[in-house]
């Protein structure tokens, strides 16, 4: 996974114009962020990035970059386990 790929998926999920979300965007301040987007994010992480991240962990991510790092770490540990 790379950051542009993740950002593109996040734009699609939140239904916002390209460039709206940056790596340093605060996750909970993203336009269109809601309880339903949160569920969509979990679905997106599962479907497109093959990881399951606990909602509590996602909530601890302040920025989009924090979440990208969390996803990358989860993918790495899943690879090592396999």
């Amino acid at each position: 996974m790379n950051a542009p790929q993740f950002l593109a998926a996040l734009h699609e999920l939140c239904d916002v114009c390209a460039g709206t979300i940056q790596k340093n965007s605060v996750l909970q301040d993203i336009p269109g962020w809601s309880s339903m987007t949160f569920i969509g994010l979990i679905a997106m992480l599962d479907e497109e990035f093959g990881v399951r991240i606990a909602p509590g962990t996602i909530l601890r991510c302040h920025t989009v970059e924090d979440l990208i790092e969390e996803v990358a770490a989860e993918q790495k540990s899943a690879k090592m386990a396999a």
Partner: protein
Amino acid sequence: MQAILKAIEYYLPPRILDNPQLCVVAPNWSPQKIQSKTGIEERRISEEEELSSDLAVKAVTKLFESGACKPNEIDYLMLCTQTPDYFLPTTACLLQNRLGLPTTCGALDFNLGCSGFIYGLGMAKGLIETGQASNVLVVTAETYTKFITPTDMSVRALFGDAAAATLVSAQDSHSAETPGIGPFVYGTDGKGAKNLIVQTGGMRKPVAGFASGGGDEDADEHVLTPPTLYMNGPEIFLFTLDAVPELVAGICSRASITFDDVDLFVFHQANEYMLRHLRDKIEIPPERFFVSMSHCGNTVSSTIPIALKEAHKAGRLKPNARVMLVGFGVGYSWGATMLRWAM
């Protein structure tokens, strides 16, 4: 004798809460967004004085009026509800009287949510195939909206009130290899209790004035706010990602079938967005996966019988069709079964 599902009717209260109405209290949402994220266009809301028992009476009365059976033929009534009229007596006992069922009829309530219909079918099959009953009414009725605060969109956009009445009857066995209902797979994990809960109003956190009989109250112990539904949607969704694929695999294994042997898959209608994700993850062909919730929302234990009724009306269920039913949610509790369509 074997148990078969003989008839289904359901009832929705008349008051509609549609997406434009919802957006009045949540201006950062749009009707289209709610529709695309939930698959729901409107949900039905019970009136203040309209209780689960009232919805149940309407659903069962429709069933009797359909000619499926007469009140005096019912020898067992079970009501699945988490919004009973009282702590006691059992709401099913009230229903026996209001519906004019024989006093020789067994009646019980059971407290389950989204998995409740599967458990009801399991108990009905047990009663019938052990010769304890011949015509079992499995009634599901909920008024979750009474627990919902108007500004909590995470639950208000999803849940609607409803009741469904399902008649499970005995018929002579034709073949042990093709049961009318079954086999069953069940599951429970109480660790998830906190993620979908009404914390107050029971004995652990009584509402103010209740435990002390209306006398002195300790505000630290007695909750002052009315019972309110709390749902941690992301945690619930994560649970379904783990539990549901395993549940589907479990019922296929127990029934010795593959997906090719299933004519229609009917899951608990939690939220269409989640359902589509689960469907794709489990690799169920879309044309054999039935969703029907846009007109009523998530009606908890009634979603599966409502979807079955709608699938039947839409011509998606031919006689003898094999249907997989999958329920999952509050508890956590889950269950699945196979159904041979007999209507």
